[in-house]
């Protein structure tokens, strides 16, 4: 028998066993589905978050708010100093008037508030777009910031990267949590599949004994069980992907502008989807291997008690 014939034989046997004992198979499949669905959700959220963050990082700026007393000389001196740093890809002066205008555009309803505050409400500022590739070591960058902070013309410095770093830590925590939860569920799924296959092997022990008796190799005896584990894993993975895609679609349709949809804006890529599916198959395979590990080799008579009523 060729290898492909063997695989198709395993497939046929495994499928018919899945259909015959569909209730227990369903249990195994649904545990896989649950664990992979959850893993998928975490993957989806974290990859979207990462994308958001990296987008924000691209646009992240350093803003130097100047003292209201800062003179035009001060501004020139600062601009000159900033432009010398090779990681400042552009330096842009936002005058107090421009700043007020921006505020009005961003928060139209708060425009009156600004009138009340008068001229000095929004100070002029220097916006520096950072070139991420050219950034120096963190310590050097920090001391550079420090020297700016101590400049008499500078009132405060706003570094977008401060809160982006914090957000990254949050994403990391989410990923770690998802990984741990997914792993725990996946291990549970492996155990479930393992028990289901051990049960199947027990139910068919008479057949296994006959196969050994007539000279079937372990490859042919175990193959269908391994295949059954893999199939359960793949079907479970497929169900998880379908649920994930369906949930994603519904979420985007129901609440396209809610912040929630921001977290699930982009669906998983084909590589991630395939990995989830493969993870399911692998879990099933491992389950099958562990279930048959202690199965004794070569014995023909793991026999039904009914068979041994001799004498």
């Amino acid at each position, binding site marked *: 028998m060729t290898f492909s*014939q063997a695989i198709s034989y395993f497939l046929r046997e495994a499928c018919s066993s899945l259909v015959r004992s569909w209730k227990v198979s369903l249990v195994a499949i649904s545990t896989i589905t649950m664990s992979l669905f959850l893993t998928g959700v975490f993957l989806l959220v974290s990859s979207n978050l990462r994308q958001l963050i990296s987008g924000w990082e691209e646009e992240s700026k350093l803003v130097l708010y100047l003292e209201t007393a800062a003179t035009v000389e001060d501004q020139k001196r600062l601009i000159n100093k900033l432009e010398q740093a090779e990681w400042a890809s552009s330096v842009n002066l936002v005058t107090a008037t421009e700043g007020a205008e921006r505020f009005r555009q961003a928060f139209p309803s708060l425009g009156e508030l600004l009138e009340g505050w008068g001229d000095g409400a929004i100070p002029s500022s220097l916006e520096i777009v950072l070139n991420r590739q050219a950034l120096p070591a963190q310590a050097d960058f920090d001391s550079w910031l420090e020297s700016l902070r101590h400049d008499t013309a500078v009132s405060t410095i706003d570094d977008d990267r401060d809160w982006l770093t914090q957000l990254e830590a949050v994403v990391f925590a989410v990923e770690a949590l998802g990984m741990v939860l997914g792993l725990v569920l996946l291990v549970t799924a492996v155990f479930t599949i393992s028990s289901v296959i051990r049960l199947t092997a027990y139910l068919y022990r008479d057949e296994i004994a006959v196969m050994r*008796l007539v000279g079937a190799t*372990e490859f042919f005896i175990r193959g269908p069980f391994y295949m059954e584990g893999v199939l359960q894993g793949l079907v479970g993975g497929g169900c998880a992907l379908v649920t994930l895609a369906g949930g994603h679609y519904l979420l985007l349709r129901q609440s396209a502008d809610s912040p929630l949809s921001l977290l699930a804006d982009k669906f998983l890529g084909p590589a991630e989807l395939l990995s989830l599916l493969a993870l399911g198959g692998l879990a099933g395979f491992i389950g099958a291997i562990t279930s048959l590990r202690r199965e004794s080799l070569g014995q*023909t008579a793991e026999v039904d008690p009914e068979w041994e009523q001799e004498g």
Partner: protein
Amino acid sequence: MIELFSVTKRYASGQVGLDNVTLKIDAGQMVFLTGPSGAGKSTFLKLIYCEEIPSSGSILVNGRNVSSLPRRKVPYLRRTIGVVFQSFRLIPRKTVFENICYLPRILGSSAQEQKELAYETLRRVSLSHRMNASPHQLSGGEQQRVAIARALMNQPEILLADEPTGNLDPELSEEILRLFLEINGQGTTVIFATHDRDLIQRVGRRVLTLEAGQLTGDQKLPGELNDAIGPGQGTMGPGQGTIDLEEEA
């Protein structure tokens, strides 16, 4: 050909299954194996089809030393040995056809080849008309014939039978025995374990007697059925022993 050289089988529990047995069974022979319960008949057969490994001594089956056969090679040996039991060991969920086609299916025979082979083999046990029946639709004798067919599917050189008539009434027993004689007549070596002395007496042939694991007797019995055929059956080659049995019946 089967040869045993000082074969001893001691089970892990300390029970002695076989005790220093040396003997030779030629190809094409029909041999009865008898002795009281616990004498070691089943052990003897299990050692031949490698269900058990001898504690000491060596066993040659068709020139191959099976006492030191690696586990992974055992299946290939078993394909040349058919085994039949008292409890027929048929799978109740499967049809007769499926029950006998386990090996051909694994060997990659096409559906058509399997059908033809199953039909031919079932014909040898006169059951070709019950191919699609379920085991529970068959009588005990018929079920045993299906088990025999399963053992014959791969044209084995050796057929082992462990009390194959133990669950059958005397009439059916004789029918099954005739079938074995017929199969032996076609060239297959047959070892038939039974404690039905009566059955053996009627047929004759070589009789090995075991007691507490020891070989205590190795005789050639003439037998009633045997007398009708002629003397010297014990060591006869294939195809000679059973010519007239069909007519006798």
